[in-house]
Structure formats: structure tokens, C-alpha cells
């Protein structure tokens, strides 16, 4: 459950209010799209861990910009918590780590596959650092699992991750399923938070590596020298107003 920004003077908090987003995290998805152009040609999308719904709002606004009613993109939003309805968004309330939720989502797609899957999920942050990082990686494992069942070949996946002791493992897991993986921290993500986003391009398709159900089944320590490294990319000079003076 993401705690709402305490700092009311926060620039994104104000912007979100002005622009009508439910949460400041909307800007993270907007900035990721600006940088990587993820929404181009997307018809079907899953928003995992969507509440209170600002990512779904962004998706609905961007994907259905110039479209007729009957030509709308299919947006399925899933969360533990109930959220207020958003026009054009199908909602499922459930735990994404639970098998039942996964089949509910698959049911919604009726045999078809998604072009894009996004996951901004965060577990109950306990403040116990290693537990938080671990449960985030578990949530990520579930998201990846859903992705493997639902994403079309060549599709993209965006997932929030926490920087921690075994980040490299998660990266290498993503690398198994996607052609390119980039770790990115959009400017609107607080510098003080340990979150970053894994942007995974070009899904290799199902079939390969189905045995690695569990994300962290390998040992913790990978020598730094020969890791399979994901490139870190910072978006350069985005908006002037973002100038990280809010750090």
C-alpha cells in the first residue's frame, strides 16, 4: 500500500491534483512512456496492482485518445483493494500471488494475449528492509508469472522493483524472458526511495525456461565481475520543472 506523499508541497503531488490523477505515481508511467514510447500500438493491457488507479487513468487517457467507443483498448486493472471505477477499465479485485486471481485475468482475455503488462505493485512496506525487498521480489515473481501466461510474443513489461541485495538475480531472471531489460528510475520517483523500474522489451514467448517458476531459486552471491548486467538508463533532460530540486 503506497503511503500518500506526506509533503503537500511536493511538486508532483500538486501536479497530480491539477491534472486530476489519483496519485502522483501517474507521472512515473507518463515519464516512462515519454522515454521509451511504450504505448505505441497497444490494444490490450494489464495493470497489475493498480489501486488507487492513476496508472489505469493514464492508460485509459493515452490509449483511447482519439478513439470511438467501440474501438477502445482493453484495460484490465487488478488490485487487492477495491478502487473507484474508471471508464473503460475492467477491474478485478484479488491478490496477484494467488492462482485464482491469475485465472480471473486470463478469463478476461478470453484466450487472447496482452500487448503490454505493467505492475506498480508494492507489498505492505514493513520498514524491515530485507523483508520488503524480498516480498517485492515475490510480487514481481507473480507478475512475471502472469506475464508469461498472458503477454504476446514481442510484448513489453514494466515492473517496479526495489533495489536490494539480490537485485542482480531479478534482472537475470527477466533477461531469460525478454530480449532487452533496462533498469530505470523516472525523475518523479523520489531519490530517497529504493524503487526503480525494470522495463522489459520484446517478450521471447512462452515455452522457454518454464522450469524457473520461482524467481530466486539460485544462490544469492553472484560475483560482480561476470553478472549479466542490465544497463541503467537515466532519462536525460526531461522536463525543466523536474529538475531534481525536489530531491
Amino acid at each position, binding site marked *: 500500500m503506497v503511503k500518500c506523499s506526506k509533503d503537500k508541497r511536493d511538486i508532483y503531488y500538486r501536479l497530480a491534483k491539477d491534472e486530476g490523477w489519483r496519485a502522483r505515481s501517474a507521472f512515473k508511467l507518463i515519464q516512462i512512456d515519454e522515454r521509451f514510447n511504450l504505448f505505441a500500438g497497444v490494444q490490450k493491457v494489464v495493470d497489475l496492482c493498480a489501486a488507487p488507479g492513476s496508472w489505469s487513468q493514464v492508460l485509459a487517457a493515452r490509449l483511447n485518445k482519439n478513439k470511438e467507443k467501440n474501438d477502445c483498448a482493453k484495460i484490465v486493472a487488478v488490485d487487492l483493494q477495491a478502487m473507484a471505477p474508471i471508464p473503460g477499465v475492467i477491474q478485478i479485485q484479488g491478490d496477484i500471488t494467488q492462482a485464482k486471481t491469475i485465472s480471473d485475468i486470463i478469463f478476461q482475455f478470453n484466450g487472447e494475449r496482452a500487448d503490454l503488462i505493467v505492475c506498480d505493485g508494492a507489498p505492505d512496506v514493513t520498514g524491515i528492509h530485507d523483508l520488503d525487498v524480498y516480498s517485492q521480489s515475490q510480487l514481481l515473481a507473480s507478475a512475471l508469472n502472469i506475464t508469461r501466461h498472458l503477454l504476446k510474443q514481442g510484448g513489453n513489461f514494466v515492473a517496479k522493483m526495489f533495489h*536490494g541485495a539480490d537485485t542482480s538475480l531479478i534482472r537475470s531472471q527477466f533477461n531469460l524472458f525478454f530480449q532487452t531489460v533496462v533498469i530505470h*528510475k523516472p525523475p518523479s520517483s523520489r531519490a530517497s526511495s529504493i524503487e526503480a523500474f525494470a522495463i522489459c522489451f520484446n517478450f521471447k514467448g512462452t515455452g522457454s525456461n518454464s522450469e524457473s517458476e520461482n524467481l530466486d531459486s539460485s544462490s544469492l552471491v553472484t560475483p560482480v565481475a561476470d553478472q549479466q548486467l542490465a544497463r541503467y538508463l537515466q532519462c536525460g533532460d526531461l522536463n525543466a520543472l523536474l529538475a531534481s530540486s525536489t530531491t
Partner: protein
Amino acid sequence: MAAEAQVSEVPIERRFFKSLFSRCRVSCVKFLDHFIIAGVGDVLHIYNINTKKIESKKQILQGQNIYGITFLEDSSEVSSRAIIWGGKEFSMVSVSFNGTINVTVIDTWLDNIWIWDVKWFDANSFLTVGMNNSVTLWKCSSKSKESIAYCEDQCIVYSGKIIGASWTTCVILVGTVMQNILIWKPTDAISPTLFTLKGHKGAIFSVNYCPKSNLIVSTSDDRTVRFWKVNFKTENDWTTANIALTSTIFGHTARVWQSAILNDSKNKNIISVGEDGMLCAWTEKGENTMRKEAHQGASICAVDVNASAGLIVTGGADGGLCLWSVTNTSEVETNHIDFNFDSCLADIHEINKPQQSAKCDTSESVILGKELSKEFNSLSPFSSLSVCRATSEETSASSDLLKNFSMTNSTNSLLDGCAFCPSAFRCSNLKSLVLVKSGNVIASLDKGFLLGSSLNSVKWKLLFYDRRFSNYHLLSVSTSRKFVSLASICGTVLLFQDNSSYGTVKITLLSEVQISSSKIFSIHWLSDEIFVTCVAEGLLELWHRIDENDSTVVERHEECVLPASKERWLTCASLSGLHLLCGDRIGSIYFYNLETSMNVSQTFKKIHQGGVCDVRWNEETGEAYSIGRDGYIRHWTKNDDKLELLLTEKLPIKWPTRIFLNQTLGIIVHGFTANQVIVWSYNERKILLREECGGGHRSWDCILNEKLVLVWIKDKSVHVKCYPVDNFSNSVLLEGFHCKEINSLTVCKTISEDGEHFDILLTGSEDTTLRISSITSLNLDSQSNFFDQCVVRSHVSSIRALASITWGREETLNNQHSEDSTTFSSGNIEYLIVSAGGRAQIKVTSLTMAASKIKKMVELASHMLRGDDRSRRTEKQDSGEPEARYMAVDVVCLSRRAVFIFTACSDGVIRIFHFSDDSRKISVVAEIYYHEACILGIRIKQINKDDQKKVFRFLMLTMTTEGIVAVWEIVAKSSSMDKLSCGYTIQSPTTPLFTFHAHQSGINSHDLQPLGDAFILATGGDDTAITLSYFLLDEKCLVKQFTFDCAHEAQVSGILFCRDNPWIFTTSTDQRIILWAYTYGTNLSLQYVAEYQSVIADIHGLSFLDPFKYTVCVYGCGLELVTFEKEIYMNSVRKEEESLSPLQE
């Protein structure tokens, strides 16, 4: 389906590092016999309950926090086995106790799932429950998984508990994020859920079960503790049981982490601990029996109970470990004494009967008879005071008299103005309340009456009346509360002795003194013998009570004069020998040495803005404390007959009123906030008691000895609360540390007389405090090597940056700011500390160390960019801009009067401040508007100086969130003309010499290595990269640069150059410390050497303790001291080389 489990081993690179010491959250606590076992990070601490001392320490799960310990139940008396687990790792250890306790690791495993609970089934097998809602049965002998079962509800669980001791009988309780408790048995590979308990409105962080009372206790994100009763149809058959929610307790103000169940013949309690730092106890019905603030308000992470001993142990996020006793609230006595004077009127009837007065002590009545004659116009109608003969005659027909008492001013009448009529009583107002030694309370009424009541009765008794004391009087009581004085507007003081026995109130008038012809402005008892009065013209007189034969006389011994002021009298006073310390209404503190002079020897004008409330000497230490309406406590010391301020600290009390020095509890402050009375411990920095009382403007009193007694008036009655002091004491096994992240750290070195070196760590934290700790021995095994010396709580917001310089003797000053000067003489060393942080606040503090002890610590100056809160409130300017924060600070000292402070600010402005020891003021001398992003780092380095012309040249580096480094030149010139900077002016440029890009995003850490004319700047960024930048100052350009991408898993938050080797240490929020080798010849390069995994989460930085021994300290959520074992590394490198080239010989 047995499977080989992974056996974890210390990876090769880690063997070159050794952990010396760590301070971090206590993640696990457990009672074992008369020991307490605690997991502090990856180190197991063992304490002896009886001695409260640590017995031993051992690093168990390398780099992994310990979250649980399970002992094998059928262990013998001298040895036991246990599983110690944390995260996905667990170790099997043998614990032996023959006199001392010894822990040996037998085996360590690594599972692939986070473990919530471990339970031994027998000496060879145990069960674990994992986060994926599965259980695994392990065999010790083969180190393998015997069986695995999953619950049919496959989801992430946030807590788990195993009940039962075999695969077939065990029951698993888990708490999900979907707010349910699931109960299941591992019957099949995928086992059905037996129960789903619904009720919680958030994730469930713990489930606990008590087989004796068949009670399930769950704690949750929804801030509740819930009790569920299991009703078995057949004993322990869960499949047919019926489970019902019996209590939902909203007792915490934040998430509830853990519970523990006490259940034996003596104690039945359920203990809960939470994020709000509260330790609570509940009955099975959900009634609260205890509420205690612990661990400085930080999260309480772990709790365990020992029912038979009635003990609770808690471990906090502040790194503290405390032992508590399960106290019984029935020991707290409560009473209300109504302010009903009718009972007094009845007393008058009784006591005024002739035979009653005949009973009175004749000698007293003679004395009193004379003194209470007509000339004094006083009347003291009863018991102890007796009634003077004249009076008793006239009052014999008391009932008539009462009727005839009038409020008229017929001067001739003895009873003129006497308020003995019921209506006069009723319109009397209570003025003061005092508690006396016997445990009774005495109240004075504004019409000149004294009433008394015992604390457990509900009846007032009229003790004394004298109309000279109507309207104005001062009631005060001696330090041990045996003597009471009453002072009047016309200079009279009456001295009484408390002669009550339990249950009956009795006071005796000892003597009457005319100390002045005019109003007594204040009177304060300094002991049981001496009191100080203040009369007109600020004349202070010390009066001594002397017992002579059967009578008591009062003599004036010392006198002195209070300096002139608007309100020239005392609000408080304390005496130690002939040193008088006192305070007044305008907030000034006065110090007198009565031996030498009757004039004030030191005045601290308006130091407690709004008034000094209390001062107190600690005779043993020669130190003193003062509190005031400014909400601060100040700690003073006496040095060569001079009073010096040691420390200033903000109180969590709006209106502090009294200081106590208590045997058990130490220094205690009593006071009020809004309508609550608060009792706060200075030693522990925690609120011991908070009680609704209506506020401090009403009459109240409070004593603290073996009991804490509070009395206050509310709703026309006197409320009494009496607590045994033991209720407030807990035993601290391990002192708490910072309760939030440490943002910055600086190390000061000291040397004792006999040449021993000490490291003093100064840590500034998000929790707004600065802590000073000394390290005496760098050895993990040694018993106590880390001493928390003091906590400074004067910053209004987080402390983000610290810098320190020595400033001892003037001649050595000039080169002190360079960290290379490590030669110190022994004896006292004075450091100047600059701390800066949130709300754009900077403070300059002087710290004098004598070896490992603080000699003196004084805040010299404080500065806020937008002014302090007081001036801000009046301005009420709200620009909407977030207030700037200082992100980093560096300092240069040219002389004691020319200290320059350079700050990196979140608004992108570089600000340079001047501080002088003379004026003790911090003022802005330059603001450089160049960067357009938040500046994360700043560094000043002296490059040369011209002693003749007194010109200093400095290199300044600034680093931003955009990954840019700017290189500046700063010149400081002597100009005696410039008054402000006392001889030096800073010429601040508007543009840098040059800039370069080092990272894709924020530069989190840096270190500078000078190489003749050139410099290498090492930087660590948010982009996880390390960059080396080689530049020449004279050529004003970057010559070469090298970036190692993805050097860490997360942002690089610390970087350090070694002194005598081309090595660099780096650290990151990924919790690794990595050692690199660099070259800078033709090309810059960086090569990985070795790494260490720290237990410290959210690492903010890295500092050297001893650069020549490769000892570093990482800090973040706690701190860890780690040393790189160069010898071992070198040997292993040599061996490797030998084995690679065996033919070389």
C-alpha cells in the same frame, strides 16, 4: 521426495573482511533459562538476566538479519540445540551452558523461500513454514528436505506459526495480505484449508497460539490485536473445532507487529508491541493492563515473555534491548478528595469543644497562645495548633460563633474578617497544594486557611487560619517535605512541621519570623534547613532553621542581591555548598558563589525565554539542570567555580515544571502539555507517564521517591494518583541508538594521558538527533566497546550533514581542516562541529573531549535561513516553495574568529557562512546561484596559502543531482577592515573554473585524492556507477575520466580513497562494501578486489575509522564497523600466484 538443500558458505571474497562491531535493529529476542538471546543484525547477543550484562556475541548468519530462534525442547540442562533463522537462511547451532554460555554453528542452510517459523519435531527433524504458504520437513542428519506441502490457497503470507510436534499432528496458522488467517494441516502435497478467519482489515503480521487457553492472537496492519477462541469438540482436533473472534483491540496507534502470550498460575496476559513504540498488555477479555512507551518511540520489532519470572523482553528498531516486569496495575492507587468544606465545619464543632483543646500540647499552646494573641489577629482552631486561650474562650460556643461570623471589617473584633462562616468557606478558592512527608496533602485557601487531608481519605480537615495570609500568601515545602512555610504580604513567615501519622493530618507551628516589613516576593526551600526569600530591591536572604532546646529559631545567615529586572524575584532556586543557582520569570539564570561575594557571579540572561521553571543541583556530580517555559532542559556543570552550559535539549513537554533526581529513575522532569501531566525521564528520553489532569494552570503537586505521587485539582476535587517507582523502571540490556537512518557521520580522534587512542563517532540522523559515541576497543567479542556518550536534540529537523575540525591552540589551527593532520597531543581536545540539515538549519557546537569522555559540549550558534520559528510565526510568509535543506557541508577554519562554512543546498544555491567564536553568530557571507538542481555534495580543499599576505586559496567542488561536478576556486584574504569576518573576506566567484559530467543522475558520494598538481575525484552515483575523474587545476580542465557502470546493484552512497594503497572502498544501498584497485597512469581503471555484505540497510555512507588499518564504518539504518584484512588477502594472492605458476622456480 528428498532433495538436496543448498548449504551456504562464506563466499571467497568475503573472507578478507571482518565485522568488528555493529549497531542496528534488534530483530529477535528469546528467553532461555536465565539468559536472553537476541538477534542484532547477523550477530547473536547473549545476556544474563541476573547480572543484566552481556555474556557473549557471535556472528551467525553472515550478512543476514536473525529473525528467529527455536530451541529443541527435550534438551538437557547443560546443552541444547537450536535453529537460528533469518530470511531464507538458517543455522543449526549447539548451545552449551556450563557456567558460561557457548554457541557453536553446526550447519547452515539456504532455502529458496522466506521462513516465518521453525519448529523441532525431534532431535533429527524440524519443520519450516515459508512465505509461499508451504511447509518443509527437514532432516538434520542428511541435511535434506524430507517432505513439502502447500496449502491449497497459494498466496504470499505475511506471518506463520506451527502448532504441534509431528507431521501428522501439526497445524499451520498463516496470515495473508488478503486480511485472512488461514489454518491448515499438511495432509497432502496440496492440502486443504481448514479455516479462514476473517475480520482484520489489513495484512496480518503475526499469529500466535496459546494451547493452555486455546487462544489465537493475531496482530495486523489495521492496528488491531484480535483474539480468537478455539473450541474443540474433541481435544486438539482442529478439523472439528469451531473458532470465533472474541476481542478486537484498538490499542495501538500504528501497525501491530508481534504478540506474546503469558500464561501460568501467576500471570495471564497478552503482550503486544507495535510500530508506535508501545508495549501493551491485555487480559483475555481485551482489557488493558499495561501501556508503556519504549525504544524512544521507534518500532518494537521483537518481544518474548518469561511467564514464571513475570518478565518481558523487547527489541527495538532503535537497536535497544529492554527487560520489563509484568506489573500489576492494582498497585496504582487512585483517589478523589472532594472539595467539600462541610466536613471542616463539622471539625470546628468537634475541636472547639473545651476538652479537645485541653488535650493539646500545652507547651505549644502557650507559645501559640502568646503569639496568637490579639496583636496578631490570628486564629488557629484545632488539633496540633491548638487554640489560644483567648480564642478558645471566645469560640467556645462555636455554633453561635459560626452564625455570627461576619465579613465586615470591624477592626476591634478578634474574629474580624474571619472566614469561618460556611459561606466564606464556600467562596474561598484553593490557592496551593503541597504534599508532605507523611503522605498527606495540605491545601491553602485564598482567605488564609490551611486544610489537610490524608491521601486515602476523602475528608478535609481545617488546620489553620490566619487572616494575614488572606489574598496573598506563598505556601512552600522543604526538600524532604517535612517542613512547610507560609509567607505573607507583610513580610511574615510561619514555619510548620508535618507531624501527621498515617491517616491523620497534623501540623505544628514551629516559629514565626518577620523577615521584612514588606511583601515577600518569593520563598524557596533549598534543603530541610535552609530557605531563601526574596523581598523588595531583589534582596535574597538565606534563612537557617535551627532547633534550640524545645524551640525552633530561624536565623539569617547569607544574603545576596538579584540584579535589577522587570520581575525581580525568584521562580526557583537550588543550593550546593555555597553555590546558589536560581532563575526568574523572564528566563534568566543567576549563579552566586556566596563564599566570595553577595553579588551575582554569573548571569545567563533570558536563557529560558518565558521563564525558568526549575533548577536543580546534582550534589554528587557538581552538575545542574534547569528547565523553562521555552520547553528546553539545560545541563550545566561547575568548573573552577564557574557555571558552564553543557547541553541544551528540547523537552517533549510544553510547560515543564519540576526536576527530580531520583535514586532509581535518575533525572526526571515533570510538566504539562495541553491538559495532560507528563513525567519524562531525561536518562532514557522517554515519557514515563501521561495522565489527563486539566492542565498546569490549576493547583497541583508532585513528589517522587519510592513512589510517584501526583495531586491535582479538577472538577472541584483533589485527584490523587500514586505509582510505585518500579512501574517506570526497566532494565536496559542494550542502550538504544538512533531510531531512524543515520545520514552522516564524522570521526574525531582523541588520545588519553597514557597514549591510548580513541575514536569518537558523531552521527547525525533523520531522527533529528546528533549522537556522540566513543569506541574503546575494536573487537566484536569484547563485552562493551561502544559507549553512547550523549545525545543532542536541538535540531528542528533531520541532520543531513556533519563536519568537524579541531580547534585547540591558535597556532595549530591553520592546517587543521585537512584530514591528513592526525598528530594530536594528549589531554583535552576541542572540536568544532558543524551540523546542518532540514529546514535549512545549521548549528555550530564545541566539543571538548578528554580521552574517551566528553569534558564539555556547548552549542555556540544556530542559524535558520528563514529565521527561527518565533520570528517566522509573526511573518507568516508562505511562499509555497518547499523549504530548502542542506545536503552537505564542509568547513574551513582560518582562525577562531574566521570559520567559514560551505553548504550544499537542495535549492541549488551554494551558501557560505561565517562563524566567529567572539560573536558566536553564524552569518551568510555569500550565496552562489549557479546550479539549477539540488546540490548533493560539497568539498573544500586548501591548495595554498601565502602567510605573508595572509591569502588562502581553496579548491571547492560541488556535485548535483544532474550528475555534474563543478570545480571552483575560493580565495580568502586578510582584510582587517572587514569587521564581519574578523580579518578575512571570502571572494566568491559566480562561475566555476570548469565543470564536467560524471554520472547520468545524482552524485551521491565522492572522495578527492590530490596527486601533486592533479586531483582524482572518485564519485558514486544514483546510476549505480563509479566514476574516476582526473583533473588539473591549473589547466582548468578534466584530463581523463573512467566510469565503471553497474559497480553496485543500487545507488553508490559511499566512496573512499585509501591512504597508502591505490585502493577505493565503495558502498551502496545494496548493502555491499566493495574494495577496488585503481590505476591512473596512462589510463584510469578500476578493478574489483573483494566485497562484504553488511547487515546495515539503506546505507547512506562510508567513513574511515583508521585509514591505515583499512577499518571502515558504514552507516544507514544503524552502523557497522568492518575491517579489510589486508594480510590475509595478500597471502591468498601470493598463494594463488604460486599455484598458477608452479614452474617458475
